[in-house]
C-alpha cells in the first residue's frame, strides 16, 4: 500500500476506534459516576450528569458493611486457577485436534459444542448431588472443577481455529530440526498463537468471573462466595442499591483491565510480526 493509503487507513482506524470507545464508555461512565453519588442523588429527577457531591461512601459501604473483600479474593482464586488449567489443557487438546491424525475429530468437536451449550439450569441439580457426595460444597474446587469442564470445550474451539491457521510448514521445519511434539508446541506454536491463547484465556476468565448460579448453590458459606453472588446479597427485597452494586462492579472490572494491559502485547503479537517468513 502507498504511504497515503496507509495513512488514510490509519485515520479511519482512529475514527472507528474513538467512536466505538465513546459508545462503550458512555454507559460505563454512567455506572461509575453513579457509584460516586449519594443515594438521594442517584434517584434525583432530572439526573445529574456528574456527581454534585462526589462521595466514596458507596465504596466504603461495599467493602465495610458488605465485606466485598472476601468475595473479591475468592473470585480471583477461582478464576485464575480455572483459567490456567483451561489454557493448559485446551492448548494441548486443540493442537492435537488441529494437527495430529486423530479419528473422529468432527464428532469430538460437535460433542464439545453440545456440552458447552447445555443449559446450566438443567445440570445444576445432579451436579449439586455430586458435589455433596464428594463433600466439596463450600470449597474452591466446587467451582473450579465445573468451571474448567464447562469452559474447556469452547476454549478448545477458539484455540483450534487459531492453531489451524498457522502454517503447517512451521511444525515440519521444527520436526526436521529434531524437535518433539511438546517442543514444537511450546517453542514454536504457542509463542506464535498468543492472540488465540489470549482470546481463549480472557473468555474463560470472564466466564468464571461472572458465573452466578453454580457459585450461589455450591458455596453457601460466606467465606467462599464470589463477587456475582456477593452483589446479589446487597440491598433488600424491595430495594436496588444502585450505588453499592455499581461501586462493586466498578471494582470488579479492574482486575480484567489490568490483566489486559499486562498482556496487551499478546493480543496483537503473532504472525504479523514476521516470524513466519523464511
Amino acid at each position, binding site marked *: 500500500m502507498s504511504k497515503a493509503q496507509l495513512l488514510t487507513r490509519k485515520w479511519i482506524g482512529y475514527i472507528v476506534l474513538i467512536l466505538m470507545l465513546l459508545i462503550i464508555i458512555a454507559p460505563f461512565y454512567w455506572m461509575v459516576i453513579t457509584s460516586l453519588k449519594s443515594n438521594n442523588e442517584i434517584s*434525583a429527577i432530572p439526573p445529574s450528569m456528574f456527581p454534585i457531591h462526589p462521595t466514596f461512601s458507596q465504596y466504603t459501604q461495599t467493602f465495610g458493611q458488605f465485606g466485598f473483600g472476601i468475595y473479591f479474593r475468592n473470585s480471583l482464586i477461582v478464576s485464575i486457577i480455572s483459567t490456567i488449567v483451561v489454557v493448559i489443557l485446551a492448548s494441548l487438546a486443540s493442537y492435537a485436534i488441529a494437527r495430529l491424525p486423530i479419528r473422529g475429530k468432527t464428532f469430538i468437536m460437535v460433542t464439545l459444542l453440545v456440552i458447552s451449550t447445555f443449559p446450566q439450569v438443567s445440570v445444576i441439580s445432579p451436579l*449439586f448431588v455430586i458435589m455433596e457426595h464428594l463433600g466439596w460444597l463450600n*470449597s474452591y*474446587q466446587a467451582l473450579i472443577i465445573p468451571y474448567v469442564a464447562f469452559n474447556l470445550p469452547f476454549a478448545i474451539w477458539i484455540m483450534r481455529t487459531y492453531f489451524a491457521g498457522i502454517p503447517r510448514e512451521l511444525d515440519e521445519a521444527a520436526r526436521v530440526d529434531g524437535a518433539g511434539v511438546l517442543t514444537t508446541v511450546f517453542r514454536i506454536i504457542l509463542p506464535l498463537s498468543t492472540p488465540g491463547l489470549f482470546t481463549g484465556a480472557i473468555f474463560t476468565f470472564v466466564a468464571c468471573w461472572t458465573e452466578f448460579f453454580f457459585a450461589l448453590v455450591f458455596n453457601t458459606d*460466606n467465606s467462599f462466595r464470589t463477587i456475582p453472588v456477593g452483589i*446479589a446479597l446487597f440491598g433488600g*427485597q*424491595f*430495594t436496588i442499591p444502585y450505588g453499592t452494586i455499581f461501586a462493586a462492579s466498578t471494582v470488579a472490572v479492574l482486575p480484567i483491565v489490568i490483566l489486559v494491559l499486562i498482556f496487551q502485547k499478546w493480543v496483537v503479537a503473532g504472525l504479523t510480526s514476521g516470524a513466519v517468513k523464511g
Partner: protein
Amino acid sequence: MKKSLLVSMSVLSASAMTMTIMTGSAFASAKHSSAVTTIDWAASPISNVGIRKALIQLFEKTHPNIHVRLTSQPTNTDTNRASLATEISGGSATPDVFMGDVVWPGQFASAGLALPLNHYFPKSYFNSFAPGLVQGATYKGKVYGAPFFMDAGFLYYRKDLLAKAHLPVPKTWEQLANDSKVLLKKHLVRYGFVWEGASYEGLTCNWMEYLTDAGGQVFNAAGKPVMNSPAAVKALTFMRSLIASGVSPKSVTTFQEPQAMNVFNAGDAAFLRNWDYAWSNSQTKGTSVVGKVGVVPMPTFAGKKGPGYGNIGGWNLYINPHSKNIQADVTFIKWMTSVQAQTVLASKYSEIPTNNQVQHDPKIKKLNPVLAIVGSEHLVPRPAQSPNYPKVSSAIYQNVNAALSGQVSVQTALNNANSQLASASSSSSL
C-alpha cells in the same frame, strides 16, 4: 512416532489436574466440632440489613447451647427459591431453617421441601399468631411455616399536597383518581399515583387488591377459575384507565417496588401503593418527602364498604425435612416468633409482627403509622393454596400486564388468564 510421549504427557497433565484438585481441597472449610449445636439459617436480607444478625445475637444470648450460622440468600425471591429448592431436593441437611415467602407453603409442601410443623409444636403455639396467618401457611391440614413477619399493601399519600389543594384523603379508587387529576391540573406534582405494574409477582399482589375490592375472585369456592367475571373486568378497566388518563405514568407497567418508591421519594408522585417498608424508606434522611407522608388502608371502589383490601405478604420460617437438628430448629423458630423477638422486630426495625399480642400492643402501635393501622385494614391473600401457585400467579400477572401495556384488550386478557389458570392447576404444563 512420539506416541509414548503423548501418553506420558496425558498422564502428566492428568496428575497435574489431580494436584490442582488436591490443593483445592486444602482450602475447603474446616468443620469445627464443639458441644453446642450449630444450625444453619438461610434468610435473604430483610429491608434493614442488620436485623438477621441482631436477632441471632439475642437468641444466642438466651440459648448458649445453640449456635446459629446465617446464610445470606439472594434478595431476588425467585433466585432465593431456586437455590433452596436445588439444595433441599438434593438431600442437603443445610440450611436447617429457612426464611421463605408466605406464598410458598403449597408448593414446598407438595414438593417435600418443608417439614410439617404440627408434630413439633403444641396446638396453642399456633394460636399466638394474628388471625389468618397460620391458615395461609397451611396445606392439606398441616402447617408448614411459622409466620415470622407479615406485610401488606398500604396507600401512602402526600399530606402537604392534599392540604394545598384542600382534598380529603381518598377512601375510594375513584376519589384517588380524581384527587390525582386535580393535583396534576394544578401542576402540584408530576404524577398522581405510582404502583407496581411490571410483569412479575408484585403485579399479582396489586391485582388481588383491585379484584377483591370489585367483588371478584381468581378461583370460586369450587376451585374453578373465574377471572373473566364482570368484577374482574371492572378492576382491570379501572387499572388501565389510571394509565390512560395520566394519573399513573405510562412506565408504571415496568415498575417494581424500587422504581415506584424512587418516584415517590423524589417527590414526584402524590400517591403510592407499597408495602410496610415504604414508611421508613420514605422518611430516610435526604428524601424529598420527609415529614410529608401519610399512610392509610387501601381504598375501595365507590359504593363498597371501606376500607379496601390490602394484599398479604411477608415471610415464614420453614424447617428443612433433612435437618439433623430439628429440636434446635424448633427452639429457634419458637424464639423468633416469641413476644421478645417480635417486639424487637417491630420496635427497632418497624416490621409488622406476626405475634398477635405484639401486633395489638398499644405501645407498638404508637411507634409508627403503619403499625397503627395494620389491624384496621382488610386483608386478602393471594390464591397460594396450590402446589402450582407460581403458574397461577404468572397466568395472572402476564395477562394483566399485557392488558395494562395495551397489547390486548381487557376482555381478551382476562379470557386468556382464565384459560391459563385452568391448565395451570393441572400438573405437567408449561
